[in-house]
């Protein structure tokens, strides 16, 4: 059974649901913002470009290190992760 504090809270919450909300009129502002901010803005944000390029460089570096670590043996390099897991 629910405790009294929650019953009281629920009663107030139901009462609060009946609160009227004043009307909003944001259409002009939204369109004004969108005219200055094209849909591709997010993708062109320097921060995202930095993360994207950083991920690519990190992935390439990891591949080179992995390849060097397997003594240039490509077949072994492909099989090694599975062999390691099986061990």
């Amino acid at each position: 059974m629910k405790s009294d504090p929650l019953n009281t809270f629920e009663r107030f919450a139901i009462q609060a649901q009946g609160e009227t909300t004043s009307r909003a009129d944001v259409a002009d502002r939204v369109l004004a913002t969108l005219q200055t901010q094209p849909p591709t803005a997010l993708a062109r944000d320097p921060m995202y470009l930095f993360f994207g390029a950083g991920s690519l460089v990190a992935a390439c570096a990891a591949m080179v290190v992995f390849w060097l670590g397997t003594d240039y043996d490509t077949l072994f390099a492909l099989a090694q992760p599975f062999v390691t897991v099986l061990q």
Partner: protein
Amino acid sequence: MVIPIGASTSLDADDCRDIAATLLGDGEAYRRLVERYQHDIARQMSRFSREFAVRDELIHDVFVEAYLSLRNYKSSAPWLHWLRKIAVRVGYRYWTSRKAGDREITLSDEDWQHLRGRSPDAGEAFEAAELVYALLAQLSPSDRLILTLVYLDGCTMAEAAHRAGWTVVGAKLRAFRARNRLAKLIEEGS
């Protein structure tokens, strides 16, 4: 994106038409969408801030984000449902971005008496909303969100989970813990 106009009764034909036109670059079509749903979103965003200026800023952000990700909208559900998910994300981000001190809205002794059920009535809906908002503001953003969705927006647990992007089990668990913390807060509040 293929929008099957009239394919489902749950989809509004005007919405489908305006979304398709917006994707083709028609700004006026998006204006119609904003004007159609801004009041629904205003009601939802008033749960996240009682200040009109902040609320309007949040509504603005919701429609800007909706526009920027409009290509991801799947027309299998009404646009308003999709919009409400974005609204929850924007509102939650607003709560988490505020400094810890900003969350503290003080409750008077009289308010605590109301919440403990020792005073029978909080007054009109406005007073009740102020009281509930001030109380929920004492909780963490995640507790506050689940309780807001369930108690103020009247969502079922499945709807709350969908809007917040949680699993139903996760939402139930959060609600259970949030209720316990709320009860403790009311009992221990000065």
